[in-house]
């Protein structure tokens, strides 16, 4: 989109944004300075007005979604027409829902609307409430604020099929599909919001397509990549105090925590804009050592797997992450997962350091406990990592009763979900995503109304608690 104004555009800037034109002022700059709000319905965009009951957009949002030509249309006609074709948004919503294999009733329940709302949204003769459309669009991982403006792209449909296929991993297939959609929507939105401030560190990582062979076991490549990662991030060989902090703060990676079926540990999603990680807050991840391992495993996918291996989304079950054999004895069916597992353990606990820590204690059980304590590893992960690092030890020696990682690790890795406000915000949106939303709203990149819609709370709740959200992540 060409945002550099011409002479004629200078007049547009004043009329569209209500901002006095200064030499060199771009459309984007004018929009960020503008106090003006816009309001969109399913079919139209207009300047905000008291009688409208649609969704409010900031001037910057309106500009970046619809472009200056559409905003000029508002000045000329009082409103601008949004739908790209008469079948939108009905066709895209229906196509998306069917691609995901979801019923209208299930989508309605997840979106918090009635089934009639979903059926109406799929009826091209209807003019629907924008609030209901936003909820439905989010549930189906569509761009809610831009809905109907663009035709559905083939990439979107393929992504939906992959989400549906991953949903077959667990018993409650459709619940998983819905959960994955939610995670994907939050990750995508966070990537968009954080794009201007994203850390450049990730550019140092070039995905590796080496997954080992007969002479070079895959775990060795996982270990190598773990060492390389520590080097690129300048982490030395010290324990990683907070893998969550490393992901969210240092690397700027979207991390979504949400409730998924118990068998699922987490996963990695890839979009054109970047990649993100989701984590199940149910099941084994309740134990901080397991959670750290899951996050490190997903980091391995995110940093090092090429796109063709990631195939838009990877969903990992706990059983894939659970070590049951020594590295040399394992028969790998999935080299992508095996590499991520080896990466995770070596990244969290570099082998040489593990051996030193283990041997510094007088008994095997004390050594095991020390390794768990120093590196924040789960009992199972620590046992097998010691076994792999110290070849002279027997697995039977590595036992300990009542052994768990200390509460210090729990505090360092704690989720923000327990004490988050407003309480109506779903778990999946209580991470750094919430902070990015507040910052975007404060910079006028999005409206207060949009911020509340994206957090899934009311505008009043958002305004009351936005300082609390900021303080959680400051």
């Amino acid at each position, binding site marked *: 989109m060409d945002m550099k104004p011409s002479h004629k555009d200078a007049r547009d800037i004043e009329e569209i944004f209500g901002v006095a034109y200064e030499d060199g002022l771009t459309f984007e700059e004018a929009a960020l300075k503008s106090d003006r709000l816009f*309001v*969109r*319905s*399913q*079919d*139209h*965009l*207009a300047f905000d*007005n*008291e*009688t*409208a*009951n*649609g*969704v409010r957009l900031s001037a910057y949002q309106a500009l970046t979604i619809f472009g200056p030509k559409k905003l000029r249309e*508002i*000045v*000329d*006609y*009082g*409103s*601008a*027409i*949004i*739908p*790209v*074709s*008469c079948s*939108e948004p009905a066709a895209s919503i229906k196509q998306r829902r069917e691609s995901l294999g979801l019923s209208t009733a299930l989508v309605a329940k997840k979106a918090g609307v009635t089934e009639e709302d979903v059926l109406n949204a799929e009826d*091209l*003769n*209807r*003019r629907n*409430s*924008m609030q209901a459309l936003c909820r439905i669009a989010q549930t189906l991982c569509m761009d809610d604020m831009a809905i109907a403006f663009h035709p559905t792209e083939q990439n979107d449909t393929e992504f939906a099929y992959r989400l549906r296929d991953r949903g077959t991993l667990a018993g409650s297939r459709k619940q998983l599909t819905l959960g994955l959609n939610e995670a994907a929507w939050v990750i995508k939105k966070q990537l968009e919001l954080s794009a201007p401030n994203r850390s450049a560190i990730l550019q140092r990582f070039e995905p590796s397509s080496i997954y080992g062979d007969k002479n070079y076991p895959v775990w060795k490549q996982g270990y190598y990549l773990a060492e390389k990662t520590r080097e690129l991030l300048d982490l030395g060989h010290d324990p990683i105090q907070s893998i969550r902090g490393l992901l969210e703060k240092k690397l700027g990676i979207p991390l979504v925590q949400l409730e998924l079926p118990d068998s699922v540990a987490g996963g990695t999603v890839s979009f054109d804009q970047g990649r993100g990680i989701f984590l199940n807050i149910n099941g084994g991840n309740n134990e901080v050592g397991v959670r750290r391992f899951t996050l490190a495993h997903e980091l391995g996918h995110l940093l090092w797997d090429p796109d063709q291996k990631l195939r838009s989304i990877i969903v990992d079950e706990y059983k894939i992450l659970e070590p049951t054999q020594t590295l040399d004895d394992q028969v790998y069916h999935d080299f992508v997962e095996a590499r991520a597992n080896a990466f995770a353990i070596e990244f969290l606990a570099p082998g040489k350091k593990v051996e030193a820590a283990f041997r510094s204690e007088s008994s095997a059980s004390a050594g095991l406990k020390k390794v768990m304590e120093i590196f924040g590893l789960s009992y199972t992960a620590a046992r097998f990592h010691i076994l792999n690092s110290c070849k002279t030890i027997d697995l039977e020696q590595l036992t300990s009763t009542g052994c768990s990682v200390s509460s210090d690790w729990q505090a360092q890795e704690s989720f923000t979900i327990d004490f988050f406000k407003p309480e109506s915000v779903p778990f999946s949106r209580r991470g750094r995503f919430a902070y990015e939303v507040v910052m975007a709203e404060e910079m006028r990149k999005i409206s207060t109304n949009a911020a509340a819609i994206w957090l899934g709370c009311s505008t009043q709740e958002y305004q009351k608690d936005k300082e609390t959200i900021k303080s959680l992540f400051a």
Partner: protein
Amino acid sequence: MWAITEAEGLLELCVAPAPNVVTGCPPKARDESQDCKYLWAVGTDTVPYALEHGDNRNHLSRGYLSHTNLTGGKPAHAGGEMWFIDNTTLVFNGASSRYQPRGLQELDSLAKAFKQCAYKVAHMGWDDGCGRPARILRGEPEWI
């Protein structure tokens, strides 16, 4: 404010049929039916209307017609866009930044007035979401 003349395509809506109008379907999405779109205004004495795009429009300030080019900038009761399906059947809306109708009731009143001139008439309705007259049809026209 520049007002166009009869020679430039200014017409006055009288009793149906409308002579020599360009016919077409009202739009159901953006960028549709632009070449057959008329602008209209209900002035103090007359109902001027004219094709928005076409020859003799380049000299106008925005390169195509505006409602003030119909009225010369004078007050008017209402204005909008209009399509003739044939010379006795029209569909209109209230899309005008300057002369926009204030609500659904006003659109209904305008439709009845046009109907009294022997036209088969429908309007595009009111969009509560943006608090403005709708500019595209959803479904088939609801004839008054």
